[in-house]
């Protein structure tokens, strides 16, 4: 049993990584990952929302009429996001200023609704929580990774610790750089996958909506 929870969580982190594999919830992955810190904060917010949504949906799964399933799930997500937003706005104002908009946009992240629909609505509470947690962790990891690369190349620092004196490639902290970094990382992962695990070409997700 424990092993399968582990599998669920690892699934979210690697084989179905929301950003690199499923290509979902890309906006924040590009826009807010200018540093490890931002990526981390955004990731944590998503992690919390996802886990809570999955738990809630799983609990309510037999109470919600299938005809209004989607609106109900969206409502649940929106509620959690609103709560997160209001909390951040009150207690973490600097972070909020930097990514307030994207926090609000968590509502529409396809990854959340799709997990609610595909997993939580069909599974018990604990597995749902594990799935949400795993997916959220995968998302968090992806954002931190992208943030780290961009911060390193763009600002010459990692998590705020300066490594080089001047900022090397400014473009990396512009969102344009986010596209390059994610594209190149995806390519790299595909290459590793194809080279060492015989993965299928043209991976990197897409079309999983």
């Amino acid at each position, binding site marked *: 049993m424990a092993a399968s929870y582990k599998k669920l969580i690892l699934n979210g982190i690697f084989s179905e990584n929301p950003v690199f594999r499923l*290509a*979902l*919830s*890309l*906006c924040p*992955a*590009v*826009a807010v990952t200018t540093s490890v810190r931002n990526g981390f904060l955004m990731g944590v917010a998503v992690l919390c929302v996802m886990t809570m949504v999955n738990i809630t949906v799983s609990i309510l799964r037999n109470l919600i009429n299938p005809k209004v399933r*989607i*609106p109900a799930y*969206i*409502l649940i*997500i*929106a*509620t959690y*996001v*609103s709560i997160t*937003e*209001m909390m951040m706005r009150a207690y973490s104002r600097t972070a909020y200023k930097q990514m307030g*908009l994207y926090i*609000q*946009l968590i*509502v*529409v*992240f*396809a990854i959340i*609704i*799709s997990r609610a629909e595909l997993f939580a609505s069909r599974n018990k509470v604990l597995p749902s929580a594990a799935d949400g947690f795993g997916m959220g962790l995968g998302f968090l990891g992806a954002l931190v990774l992208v943030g780290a690369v961009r911060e390193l190349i763009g600002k010459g620092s990692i998590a705020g610790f300066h490594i080089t004196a001047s900022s090397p490639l400014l*473009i990396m902290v*512009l*969102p*344009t*750089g*986010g*596209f*390059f970094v*994610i*594209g*190149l990382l*995806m*390519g*790299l992962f*595909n*290459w590793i*996958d*194809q080279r060492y695990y015989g993965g299928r*070409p*043209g*991976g*990197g*997700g*897409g*079309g999983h*909506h």
Partner: protein
Amino acid sequence: MFKDLFTIFIASAIINNFVFTRYLGLCIFFGVSKKMETALGMSMTFTAVMVISAALSWLVYNLVMLPLHIEFLKIVLFIGIVAGFVQFADTLLKKLNPTLYYKLGIYLVLITTNCIILAVPLLNTDNNYNFLQSITLGLGSGAGFSLALIIMASIRERLELANIPKPFQGMPIAFIVTGLIALAFLGFSGMITI
């Protein structure tokens, strides 16, 4: 007045294009830009939903929520309007025009998970836009998203004839292309500030 609306339109459609300069709506952008046909279908559907939801959101927000001082429910409301409307349209279309539904139905569902659909009403309220301005922003954003989709679809169709290294086929190269387009769109930076 007209000039103001024109500026909002041009800014949101081109200069501050949501996809290339604000980095919103990316999932759907990458998802449906593989073929020109789907890109066109999504463009039309999206623009229509965008305008309608901008109008509905403005009405409910300004006529109901503001007087009641319950603005904090706006996220719930905005996304609720989109989701409700989309599901409604979905049901309706399936019955009334199955061919159109077959063409556009898949996009309808995707729209609820597009950042832009939520960002636009949020921006409208942030900027205290009036009704016309709100609709114009919706229209401009829809047009801008359509433009982005169509450009991307045409490029990706050309890329299908290219010899892209295997690991980069599909999503990775799409990201790189978008990065390059965004780099080109930097040329517009500093042109209009909103």
